[in-house]
């Protein structure tokens, strides 16, 4: 599900290692039809410092210069009416030193008056994400119809320890802690919601 990330991140433009402000950005390897409905675009803002540097900032070297990630912001590509967003967007930049980067949306999180803003202009071409008509011609098949080897292989894959299921089995074995079981179900969630990721500045996302 997160497969688009590396593609966009690493190959957004041939020969460029970074993007500066006021540049147009096009994703030559990404097609609109291959976008996931929940796709996000995420910008990381890097800067170099002449004076003292906050040691907690993530550092990367671009063109031989050490740059530090000072902020980030993200935006869902489709709006609540399933249209690809168009026009100018104002993304509230979140301080990278304070809050870890996530794949969530900052556009509607401009809650602070002094929040820095990254302005992005998206293409004005309208694109609607159509409703998906799920297939209804599928039929369940009996597990025992496949060979014993395949059954065993599938079981091995499926029965591989899974964090939630392991926790579940441990917790229900202790009948006296029924409520604890319910409280602990999702304590290990990590932020994996990130689908698309990009470095730097205001650019235009243009359909390829």
């Amino acid at each position, binding site marked *: *599900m997160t*497969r688009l990330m590396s593609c966009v991140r690493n190959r957004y433009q041939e020969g460029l290692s970074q993007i500066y402000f006021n540049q147009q950005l096009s994703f030559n390897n990404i097609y609109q039809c291959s976008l*996931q409905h929940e796709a996000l675009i995420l910008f990381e803002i890097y800067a170099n410092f002449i004076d003292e540097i906050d040691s907690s900032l993530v550092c990367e070297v671009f063109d031989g210069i050490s740059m530090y990630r000072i902020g980030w912001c993200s935006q869902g590509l489709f709006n*609540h009416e399933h249209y690809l967003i168009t026009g100018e967007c104002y993304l509230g930049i979140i301080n990278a030193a304070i809050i870890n980067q996530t794949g969530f949306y900052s556009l509607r999180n401009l809650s602070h008056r002094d929040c820095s803003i990254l302005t992005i202009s998206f293409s004005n071409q309208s694109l609607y994400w159509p409703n*998906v008509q799920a297939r209804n011609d*599928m039929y369940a098949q009996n597990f025992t119809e496949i060979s014993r080897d395949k059954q065993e*292989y599938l079981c091995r894959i499926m029965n591989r320890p899974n*964090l939630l299921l392991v926790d579940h089995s441990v917790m229900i074995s202790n009948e006296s802690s029924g409520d604890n079981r319910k409280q602990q179900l999702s304590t290990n969630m990590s932020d994996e919601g990130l689908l698309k990721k990009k470095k730097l500045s205001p650019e235009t996302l243009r359909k390829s």
Partner: protein
Amino acid sequence: MISNILILDGEFPSDERYFLWSHRYFLTHKPYALPELLKSRSVWDYPSLIDIYGLVDLITHNRTIDEIESFELLLPAFPDMYIRSFAYRSLISQITSHDLIIYLPQLLQIIKFDYDYSSPIIEHLLKESIHDHRLAHKLYWYLRQLLLTENIHFTRYYYLFMSLLYVIGENFRIELQNEYDLCINLRKIGLELKKTKSNKGYFLIEQLKELNNEFFQSSKYSCRLPCQFSFITNNIDINSCSIFNSLTLPVKLVFNPIDLSCEKYYSIYKIGDDLRVKIFFYK
């Protein structure tokens, strides 16, 4: 446990992914198979969804998705809102209103991973809150705290908070506001207590007397406790209250019940917490 976390975070090798997905019709009856099958999908574009959603529908017709499987489908690994809405609906069909209160902290964290602000669980929580004041009370106080601590998701919680205030009706809204006012008053007392250099015990008694007279209007006015929906109080038992000898100056607060046949409510109040967070019962 660490190895399990690594397995969960890692993806299936491509050969396993292919093998799993190509045998999906044989796994429709297997409990907890759906998250694994969906994890085996690496492409979620429009043409693929026709097939993926078809599989979800097929599994729905063949077996029940329990709350454990539903919760797994609500992890951030599954951002697709069709899948998440399906998981929410399955969860809602499985849990009682009592369970809903127990799961509330998890649900309020899980909604962070929704692409949209609206979802079946949000609608369900709001609908249930209309007639279940115990749930509304819990939801109100969880959201109050999240509004203080959340940064990135502040707006999401703010919308839910405002929606809750809108649906619960004016009387209960006023009641919740009174509970909030009680917390504000206690916080003010706690802060002043820390500042005061005179006799702290005496200062506390005077402040609590004032609270009884002004907030509770000499027992004419009653209020639920934020930490205990079923406990209604109309004054504080000042003689039983005291200050603990600690840097943060926790205060032992004892609330009298409005129904005198009930037991008093013993608690510790510490600055920086609302009453819901750090309440200890004395036995």
